[in-house]
């Protein structure tokens, strides 16, 4: 037993539970300190995660759990996302009647679910970690029990999430029926035997289940509705964390467990990638709601990242890892601003951002930077991510014409996305505000979290080398047969 490897997950879980317990003794006016404690704890765990070196893969629980470079990369990413999400939650939870600690604890649990997912090397752990996230998110999404959109989003996430889980688990059952094992690796070395129909069908159902997490076509419908209805910190965590966990699992399943099947499915995956890019970007054009817009854009970004999967190479995986980190920075910043710039109960309409540059130049610049990074304009991190992804596709296009089409679709999608991202920038900087509104005070915690995101956006864009090396190292750990 190498249970020591699971220390980070355990610590996060313990932190969540400790938070819930401490909450019982904390007076109402000191609840905020709990959140700060949670942030501090999570940051400590993040720092502690660097004690683990990314050496050869280490296994725990009889191979169910693997700690390799990729798992470590994802864990650090998720811990970072968790810190920022907690900061957002702390800011946002001022508008809740009660439940700051619970909200923070749930976030911590979701983060721990994601971290488990990053290390899953077994269908059971995959399922459990996914469900840990999903069930937590049911609550997180509908946390504003008195706000109808939050509840509606919660119900939608509940039904569709459960449906996706059902697909996932049924797929797992079929794969088990076909291979007789629940590990990702077959009996004879890495990779599952994927000859039988059961396994192939089962994997397709798993793909659908995981596709729900990342929000790809045709499992994308929930994303805009839920992003719009959920509290902003939840949506941030959904976009940055849950999607990352989905990709971690997808990479494990498609590249490690079933590379043959993935190769067979490549045309479909390409179709899905292209469709996601187009769907997300086209539907986002007429959006007026900032969070809904980010929901659609998350579909498009899932499509971009699938480009890294369809090339079925380590370089593509590295591109996805890099992209996820950059996407997390940008989208967290965007949701943080969405949490701060709007009044409680006010729908997050983009026109209401008019005059933001005067109300808070910092928030304005942050949102603009995050939009520009999402649009993929240099020198921000979003560009370099897209650069890496497109690099893979262009290389493949030399051999296969269909990749040329995919590159064209991606290009069209990216250019289309400029339209709505810059629409947000326009709203911030030069739309005429309907009424003069007071300046926004940004708390120190939120400001620092936002600053961290911005530093990430700019620094990883201008000096991409360290992050890129980390991503390459992590992708190098993938055991592609």
């Amino acid at each position, binding site marked *: 037993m190498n249970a020591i490897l699971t220390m980070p997950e355990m610590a996060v879980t313990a932190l969540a539970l400790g938070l819930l317990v401490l909450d019982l003794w904390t007076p109402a006016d000191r609840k905020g300190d709990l959140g700060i404690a949670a942030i501090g704890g999570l940051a400590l765990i993040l720092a502690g995660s660097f004690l683990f070196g990314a050496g050869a893969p280490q296994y725990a629980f009889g191979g169910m759990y693997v700690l390799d470079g990729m798992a470590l990369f994802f864990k650090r990413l998720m811990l970072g996302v968790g810190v920022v999400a907690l900061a957002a939650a702390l800011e946002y939870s001022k508008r809740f009647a009660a439940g700051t600690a619970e909200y923070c604890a749930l976030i911590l649990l979701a983060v721990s679910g994601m971290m488990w997912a990053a290390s899953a090397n077994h269908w059971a752990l995959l399922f459990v970690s996914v469900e840990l996230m999903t069930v937590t998110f049911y609550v997180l999404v509908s946390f504003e029990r008195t706000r109808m959109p939050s509840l509606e989003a919660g119900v939608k996430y509940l039904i569709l999430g459960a449906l996706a889980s059902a697909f996932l688990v049924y797929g797992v059952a079929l794969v088990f029926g076909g291979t007789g094992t629940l590990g990702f690796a077959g009996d004879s070395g890495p990779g599952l035997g994927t000859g039988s129909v059961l396994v192939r069908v089962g994997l397709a159902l798993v793909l659908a289940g995981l596709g729900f997490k990342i929000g790809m076509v045709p499992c994308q419908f929930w994303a805009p509705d839920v992003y719009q209805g959920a509290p902003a910190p939840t949506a941030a965590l959904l976009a940055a964390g849950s999607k990352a966990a989905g990709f971690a699992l997808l990479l494990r399943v498609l590249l490690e467990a079933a590379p043959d099947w993935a190769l067979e499915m490549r045309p479909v995956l390409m179709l899905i990638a292209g469709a996601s890019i187009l769907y997300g970007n086209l539907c986002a054009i007429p959006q007026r709601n900032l969070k809904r817009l980010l929901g659609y854009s998350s579909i498009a970004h899932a499509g971009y990242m699938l480009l890294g999967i369809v090339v079925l190479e380590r370089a593509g995986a590295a591109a996805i890892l890099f992209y996820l980190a950059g996407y997390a920075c940008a989208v967290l910043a965007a949701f943080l601003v969405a949490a701060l710039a709007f009044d409680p109960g006010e729908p997050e309409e983009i026109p209401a951002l008019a005059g933001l540059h005067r109300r808070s130049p910092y928030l304005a610049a942050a949102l603009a930077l995050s939009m520009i990074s999402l649009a993929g304009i240099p020198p921000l991190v979003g560009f370099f991510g897209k650069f890496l992804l497109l690099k893979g596709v*262009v290389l493949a*296009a*030399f051999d296969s014409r269909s990749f040329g089409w995919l590159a064209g679709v991606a290009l069209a999608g990216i250019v289309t996305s400029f339209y709505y991202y810059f629409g947000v*920038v326009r709203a911030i900087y*030069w739309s005429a505000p309907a009424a003069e509104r007071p300046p926004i005070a940004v708390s120190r915690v939120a400001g620092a979290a936002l600053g961290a995101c911005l530093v990430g956006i700019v620094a990883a864009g201008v000096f991409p*080398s360290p992050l890129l090396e980390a991503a390459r190292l992590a992708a190098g750990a993938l055991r592609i047969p």
Partner: protein
Amino acid sequence: MSILTVILLLPLLALAALAAWPSRQRVMFQAVTIGITFVELVLASLAAWQFDVSAAQSFQFVQKVPWIPSLGISFHVGVDGLSVGLVWMATLVSFAAACASWEIRERVKTFHLLLLLMNAGVLGAFASLDLFFFYIFHELALVPTFLMIGIWGRGGQRSYAAFKITLYLGLGSMVLLLGLLAVFFLAGQTTFDMVELAAQARQSPFPVARQQAVFPLLLLGFGILASLWPFHTWAPLAYGAAPTPTAMLHAGALKKFGLYGLLRVALPLVPDGARDWMSVLAWLALGNLLFCGLVAVRQKELDRLIGYSSVAHMGFIFLGIASGTALGITGAAVVMVAHGMLAALSFGLSGHLYQQTRTLELDRLGGLLRPMPFLGTALVMAMLAACGVPGFGNFPGELLVFFGSWPPRPAATAIAAAAALVVGAVYALRAVRKALHGPLPDAWQAADDLSNPWRRLPFVLLLAGLIGLGCFPGPLVDRIQPAAAAIARPLESAPAPAALIPLPAAALTRPPEEASR
């Protein structure tokens, strides 16, 4: 540290410093921007002066810092004869644009931060010798342009214009990105370094079929960025709506990026792909020259007219490039430098005119030469330069383009010459006639000339640059010509006519490419 690195770092450092400065002290921002761009101008002039003409084909002031070693990306700057003039022109235009920014009265801090960012992008694009940075630096200017047009732009269409230029240029740069990536793969995925790539392409040319697939991407990408017909409609619209400094910097310096890219990247790296497209490019160039020239004739507003004229001028450069001869390419590069100054001058003047009259509708203007003698004279000179009058920088460039492209394509050259000499004169002089000549309407009796010598300075400098280049093109041509000859060598499918006929001894004693190798 290379002088070029200093030039590039200056605006970025200033940007960082100014970002922390309180936004109330408005004068501070303009003063710093002007100061920084002036220092750049001085440094670039120094570089141009120290440039070793005898080695104009090789890169000088080189600095190389590994940036992303795993992808073969490094921060690599340097100039050869082709780019040294462009860098100098870009600093001059930047300085002029910074000087013209006094018209900005709101959100001064933001404006100058964006201007510095754009300035860094422009200079970096011309100084970079790494494909990646070459691309990145150009893109640096995309967002500032969008914001500047949107926030400080003029006219009811500014929002549309801001979006149009951003989307259009975004499209162009995405196509370009695909093309650059394809070049990266052609060369074996080892490096983005232009110098190494070019050496590789020279020694072992890439497979022809691949080249033919890649070149259209590059042509389309660079073409959109340089307003190649029919992808030009963003330019007049955006320049008409942009605040003066932005229009000056964008039309003057930034738009040359696409053309520079064709010369620096597309032609040397994929010459076999390029050759087949040259005749297409020549006819598209006529689309710029003739079609956009004719459109310019019909414009009712001065800034739109200048915008279309600027698009039309791109035609010379495309024609020169399409000629595939050393002469034509040299001419194209000279026009690039000259047009940079000319565009900045024209937009700067029309911007000042707008400040005075609040309209640029030609039918409402008239007789302004009387109340504004300095501005009027400068505008007359700009318009004369625009129609290719000798003595201004455009003339030697256009002449070289004609000489270069006549032997391979007499018909296209003849049409181009007609467009340049006749159509160009019609729109340029018609603008003078309507805006400056004729009776002076009562409304503009009190229009204020550029009375302050400091405000005249940028225009005086630009005019001096234009006239200097027009009268003494030798120094620039000597710098460009070896690089141009190196670009043209793999392209020349048929021997130039000069080779058929014994040349005067003077021309034979200086075979440009071998001598400098």
